[in-house]
C-alpha cells in the first residue's frame, strides 16, 4: 500500500507552494478583483509557463514534460490554495486535455507545443444559456468549416487564443467539438462581470467563424464527458487547496479573536464548526487522492473516482469558505478582508464544469453501470 505522493511529487508540491507564496500572495488576487480591466495575472501566468507547469502532462514529443496527473494534481492543489488568478484550469485541464485526447497528429503539433510553454491560452466553450447544457439544448451549429452561435459564459474566453467549441450535431452523441481561433475577425468577444472577478468569463459570438473539427463528428459530447472527468479531479484538488486555506485562516482568526475574555476558538460552537470543516476537507482530500490515482492509471473506476472527488470537494469548499466568513464575524463580510475571495472561488469552481447536482447523478449512473456489468 502506497497511497501517497512520491518524494519527488512532494518536492514539486513544496516548490509550487513556495513559488506561489512569493508570486501570488492574496494581495495580487485582490489587485485583479479590484481592477475591472484586469482579467488575469499576466506576470504570474508568464512565470507559470517558465516553471513548465502548463506542460506537465503534455507528451515530450510535443514539447511537454510527459509527467503524470499526479504531478498536475499537486500543482492544482497549490494553485487552488493560492487562488491563482490565471486561466490555468481552462487552458491546461480542459483545452490541452481535449487536444491531447482527441486531436490529430497535426492538431497536436500545431497547438500542444505552444500550450506547453503557456504562450497561448486555450479554453472550452459549452454553455449558451442558464441551466444545464445538453446536446439537445445546443443552438450553436457548424457546417464543418465554419460555425455560428453565441457561447455564454466562457471561462477565460476573453483572454484565450483559441477555444474548443461544442456545437450541435445530428448524429452520434448529438454534439461535435471544433477548434476555433478566437483572434479571427468572425469572432466577437466581450468580458463579463463575474461572481469571482479573479477568474474571467466572456460572451463569445461566432459568425461563420472558421473552425476545425476535433475528433469525430457526433463524438463531441463523449469527449466533453471525458475531459470533464479529468478536469473534475484537478478542479477538486484546487478546491481542496482552497478549503484548507480557509481552515487555516479561520483557525488563526479564532485563536486570536477574544470574546468574553477568551479566544472564540475555545467555544464549542467554533471548535466543532472547525472540526467539521476539517472532516469535510479530509473526506474530500482522500477522495482526491483516489481520483488522482484513477486518473494517473486511467483506471476504469475513473468516472466514479472523479465524481466522488468533485462532489466532496464542492461540498467541502462551500462549507469551509462560508464558515470561514462566519468565524470572522463582521470582518468576514467586509471587502477589506480576504475571506470573500475563497467564497467566490468556491462557487466559480462549483458551477464551472457541472454543479454538484449533475455529478451526484453521474456518480450513481457510473455505479449502476459498474454493478450491471
Amino acid at each position, binding site marked *: 500500500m502506497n497511497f501517497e505522493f512520491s518524494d519527488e511529487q512532494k518536492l514539486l508540491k513544496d516548490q509550487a507552494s513556495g513559488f506561489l507564496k512569493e508570486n501570488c500572495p492574496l494581495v495580487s488576487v485582490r489587485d485583479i478583483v479590484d481592477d475591472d480591466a484586469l482579467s488575469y495575472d499576466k506576470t504570474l501566468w508568464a512565470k507559470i509557463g517558465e516553471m513548465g507547469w502548463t506542460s506537465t502532462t503534455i507528451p515530450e514529443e510535443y514539447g511537454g514534460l510527459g509527467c503524470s496527473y499526479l504531478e498536475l494534481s499537486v500543482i492544482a492543489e497549490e494553485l487552488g490554495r493560492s487562488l491563482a488568478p490565471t486561466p490555468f484550469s481552462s487552458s491546461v485541464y480542459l483545452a490541452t486535455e481535449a487536444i491531447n485526447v482527441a486531436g490529430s497528429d497535426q492538431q497536436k503539433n500545431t497547438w500542444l507545443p505552444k500550450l506547453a510553454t503557456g504562450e497561448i491560452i486555450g479554453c472550452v466553450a459549452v454553455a449558451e*444559456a442558464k441551466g444545464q447544457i445538453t446536446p439537445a439544448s445546443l443552438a450553436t451549429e457548424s457546417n464543418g468549416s465554419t460555425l455560428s452561435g453565441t457561447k455564454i459564459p466562457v471561462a477565460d474566453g476573453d483572454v484565450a487564443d483559441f477555444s474548443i467549441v461544442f456545437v450541435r450535431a445530428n448524429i452520434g452523441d448529438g454534439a461535435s467539438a471544433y477548434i476555433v481561433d478566437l483572434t479571427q475577425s468572425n469572432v466577437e468577444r466581450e468580458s463579463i462581470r463575474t*461572481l469571482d472577478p479573479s477568474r474571467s468569463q466572456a460572451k463569445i459570438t461566432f459568425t461563420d467563424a472558421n473552425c476545425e473539427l476535433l475528433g469525430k463528428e457526433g463524438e463531441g459530447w463523449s469527449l466533453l464527458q471525458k475531459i470533464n472527468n479529468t478536469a473534475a479531479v484537478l478542479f477538486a484538488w484546487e478546491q481542496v487547496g482552497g478549503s484548507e486555506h480557509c481552515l487555516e485562516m479561520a483557525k488563526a482568526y479564532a485563536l486570536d479573536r477574544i470574546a468574553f475574555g477568551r479566544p472564540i476558538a475555545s467555544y464549542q460552537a467554533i471548535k466543532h464548526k472547525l472540526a467539521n470543516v476539517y472532516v469535510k476537507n479530509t473526506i474530500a482530500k482522500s477522495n482526491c487522492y483516489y481520483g488522482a490515482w484513477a486518473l494517473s492509471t486511467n483506471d476504469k473506476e475513473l468516472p466514479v473516482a472523479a465524481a466522488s472527488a468533485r462532489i466532496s470537494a464542492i461540498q467541502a469548499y462551500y462549507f469551509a469558505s462560508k464558515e470561514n466568513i462566519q468565524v470572522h464575524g463582521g470582518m468576514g463580510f467586509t471587502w477589506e478582508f480576504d475571506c470573500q475571495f475563497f467564497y467566490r472561488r468556491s462557487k466559480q469552481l462549483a458551477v464551472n464544469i457541472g454543479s454538484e447536482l449533475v455529478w451526484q447523478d453521474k456518480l450513481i449512473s457510473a455505479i449502476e453501470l459498474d454493478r450491471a456489468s
Partner: protein
Amino acid sequence: MDFNDTPKEAEFRIEVRTWLEANAPTESELRDMEPMASSKLWQKRKYDAGWACLRWPKEYGGRGASAIEQVIYSQEEAKIQTPDNVFMIGQGMCAPTMMAWATEEQKREYVPAIASGEKVWCQLFSEPAAGSDLAALTTKAERDGDDWIINGQKIWTSGAHYSDYGVIVLRTDPTVPKHKGLSYFFFDMKSEGVETRPIKQISGASNFNEVYFTNLRVPDTQRLGKVGQGWEVALTTLMNERASIGSGGGGGVNFNRLFKLAQDVNINDKPAIKNDVVREKLANWYVQESGLKFTGHRTLTALSRGELPGPENSIGKLVGAPKSQDMASFGLDLLEQSGAIWDDEYSDFRGLYQTSYMSSPAIRVAGGTDEIMANIIAERVLGLPQEVRVDKGIPFNEIPTSSSVK
C-alpha cells in the same frame, strides 16, 4: 382560530387604510426629490396626522396606541408604495432609550423631532474588537470639566453619514470589571471630532460605517443614566433592537423566487422543478418559510391579546439567514455555468441569486451571529446555563484582548 381582525381591530384597520389612501405621497409629489427629502416629507405628514410612532405617548409625538394597532398600521403601510424609512433606528431604539432614561426636558426637546422625522438618529455601540461581546468596547470618554472627551472608533453604524444625533456607549473606567466601567451618552453627529467612513461589503453595498472620534466633546448633561450605568442603559436599546429585528431573514431569495427559477431552467432537458432533488429541497424550504410565517402569526396573536412576545422571535433570524445562503447557493447551482456571471447586462433574474449569495453572509452576522442567536434561544427560551465567563469580576484592563487591538 381565524385569520380575521377582532371587530375593534377591523375598525382601526379601516381608519388606517382610509387615511393612507388619502394621504400617501403620490409619485408626482416625490418626483425629482432626493431619497432623504422624500422620507422626511412622508414622516412629517404621518406625524402631523398622528400616525407616527403609534405606541409612543402623545406628548412625545406618538398616538398612545396598542401593540396590535402598531402592527395593523405597519401591515397597511406595507401594502402601499412609500419612501424608504431612514428613521427606524432612531424611532426603534434611540427614542425608547431616551424616553426611559433622559430628563423630562430632554425628552420633550428630542423625542418629538425623532417622531416627526426632523432629526435622524443612529446607534454607535459595536467596535472592531467588541462585536458579540459588546461590553468589551474600548472607546473612551474622559471627564473634562462639564464635558467628556471622546476618543476611539465605532463600527457597523448604519446611517452614520446622514444622522443628526447618535447614542453611544463608552468606557469611562477601564480599571473596574467590564460591565461596570461603561457610560451612555447621546451627542450631535455633526460635531467636530466625528469622522464617518463607509464600509464596503463583499456584496459591493455599503450599509454600514466606521465612525472615528478624535477629542469629540460631549456635555455631561447628555449622559443617560449614571456614570458606570452605561451597560444597563444599553440593554434598553438592545431590547428594543431585538424587538425591531423581528423575524428578519431578508436576503432576496425565497421560495417563490426559487420555485420560478426551477420552472425556468432545465435539468436533463426537463424543467428543474420536475427533478426530485429540486422538489425535496424546495419542500423543505417551503415548510421552513411557512413555519416562520405562522410563528409570526402566533406572535401577532399574542400581541393582539396584549401579551408580550418572548425571545422565541430569534428563531426567525437563526433559520432565515442560513436558509437564504443555502437557497442562493442552490439557485446558482441551478443556473449552472451562468451562475458565475454577475453582470447587470447578462445575469439572469437581475443577479438576484448572485447578490443574495454575496449578501447572506452579512445576514448571518449582523444583529447577532447564528451562534449568538442559538445561545439566546438556549439561555433565554430554554433556560440553559450561560457560557462560562472567565472575565467576570476582573478589571477590564486586565482581560486579554485580540492581537488586532493595540
